[in-house]
């Protein structure tokens, strides 16, 4: 009996380890390739461990003007995005969390309808165009400013804060705005930080909006730059002058660019991970 259970455990453990290796392998391969000596990789041998050590690819990519511009644009959209998204989502979710607010149900239905039916790519493009956002950084911030999912999530965070706090503040003469900023926000700092990180990751990673709303090369974001570089095989035209390529290989430069794009995510991942399970769970149970 007990031996059968331990065989079962061993099997489960093995499957899980294999799956974890499989998910991590692609990323490991990128790091490995980007720091290895390109001349040794070129021989076409199987690579499981770094061969030599060479950061030439990183030097080349970090000297590339288009990489630097698009990196800066992505940083800008992420910072603006987090500020604007949080401001709108928090204030909307806070007001919605008040059970006594007349019309609360109407506002809930108003936002949930948009989850079930939408105008689609072209009409949304026409509205974004009509509001004058095309080819500005705001096209990457405003049209995604609210997420119904996040609003519902934040609403449940606020609902979980005891109402007695609000009541006593009201007796002291505080208005709803003061209560929101001075009492509720400080109390939900951890949740706000979690949602903020999620918004930041979303802005860092997404690129469909940049493809649709941005035509100017100087406003290109990191993900579109990277797509041109890894997908379209005309990397030389993407990168501009590549006389330095003798020092390294296209493969090394590509993987170095991928790694630099992922680096900020790797840095914030431990912080996100600390909270996200809680966030998702709350959304699932309450939403």
């Amino acid at each position, binding site marked *: 009996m007990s031996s059968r*259970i331990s065989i*079962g*455990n061993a099997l*489960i453990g093995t*499957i*899980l380890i294999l*799956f*974890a290796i499989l*998910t*991590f392998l*692609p990323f490991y*391969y*990128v790091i490995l*390739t980007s720091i290895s000596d390109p001349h040794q990789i*070129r021989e*076409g041998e*199987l*690579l499981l461990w770094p061969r030599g050590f060479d950061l030439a690819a990183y030097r080349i990519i970090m000297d590339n003007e288009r990489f630097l511009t698009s990196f800066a644009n992505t940083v800008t959209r992420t910072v603006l995005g987090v500020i604007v998204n949080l401001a*709108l989502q928090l204030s*909307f979710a806070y*007001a*919605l969390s008040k059970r006594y*607010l007349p019309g609360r149900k109407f506002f809930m239905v108003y936002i949930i309808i*948009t989850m079930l*039916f*939408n*105008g*689609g*790519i*072209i*009409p*949304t*493009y*026409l*509205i974004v165009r009509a*509001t004058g956002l095309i080819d500005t950084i705001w096209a990457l911030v*405003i049209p995604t*400013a609210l997420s119904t999912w996040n*609003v519902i999530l934040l609403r449940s965070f606020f609902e979980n804060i005891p109402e007695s706090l609000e009541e006593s503040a009201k007796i002291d003469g505080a208005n709803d705005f003061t209560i*929101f900023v001075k009492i509720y926000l400080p109390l939900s700092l951890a949740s706000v930080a979690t949602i903020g990180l999620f918004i930041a990751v979303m802005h*860092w*990673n997404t690129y*469909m909006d940049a*493809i649709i709303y941005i035509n100017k090369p100087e406003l290109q974001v990191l*993900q579109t730059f*990277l*797509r041109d570089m*890894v*997908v379209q095989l005309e990397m030389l035209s993407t990168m501009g002058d590549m006389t330095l390529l003798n020092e390294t290989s296209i*493969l090394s430069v590509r*993987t170095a660019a*991928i790694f630099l*794009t*992922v680096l900020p*995510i790797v840095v914030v991942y431990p912080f996100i*991970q600390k909270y996200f*399970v809680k966030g998702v*769970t709350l959304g*699932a*149970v309450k939403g």
Partner: protein
Amino acid sequence: MTQHHMKTVQEIAMSRKKGIIRFCSTIWRHKFLYLLLMPGFIWYFIYKYLPMYGLIIAFKEFNFMKGIWGSPWVGLKHFEFLFSYPDFYRILKNTVLLNVYELVFSFPMPIILALLLNELKNMLFKRTIQTVVYFPHFLSWVVFGGIIIQLLSPNDGLVNQIRELFGLEPIHFMTQSAYFRPIVIISLILKETGWGAIIYLAALTTIDPEQYEAATMDGATRFQKLIYVTLPGIRNTIILLFILKIGSMLDYGFEQIYVLYNPTVYDVGDVLSTYIYRIGLQDARFSMTTAIGFFQSFVGLILIWSANRLAKRYSDVSIW
């Protein structure tokens, strides 16, 4: 009689007036809360509801000079064109097929992963596995897709290097239609399975441990406990996510496809969203592609509504 009647009219007028006053005073009492709602309310109106209104260009010949309202009506012309257009059936088939494959191969994966993780007693091991498998969710599709393309590259990709070890010819994976759908689904499974498991793990924690104890007392095996205790415990979550998935059967993620496809695999890789983008925006065929978008949204609504109805009838789960 008439006097009495007059009185009631007066009374109604009075009470209506009172009602308006009460309404205004309610708004005034909560003025700060409504003020907080305002920016979001306006945002939803402009960026969610106006595009729905913009869908009317599916029934018009859209022209930038005349705008959404001013463009001339053409009735069902674009829809008639679409339904007699082979390209439309091709992209519709591609979209539905990818979603069906996703439902069959990718949808069960997070459930299996969550059930396996749930069996683990060693918390450190469990957390390590979770940390690793959640990670790819936070990578963009450009990065993840880019890595997949690199791994499958005919010259220096890992997969073809392994093939070479066994003396096999390298395969040009990304430019052959036969490999496109498997690549899309496998990359989706690798990237999102871990993340998808979180919601099931959360549901698993709500199962009462006493149920397991009672089952053990009755002499249930591990497998029997899985079938009679664990699965019923997460049944509602499975149904809920299933309904949501059914609602998006005509919607396949643009960002994933846009990285993985290229003109050599358009025949199997082009889905509704990529087609709308390429033909609609790049070739400026706004009205025709809006008709596709309208069809997509409308069918999506019907699908989610029917799935929800079925779920309500055969279980107690409903998304609204």
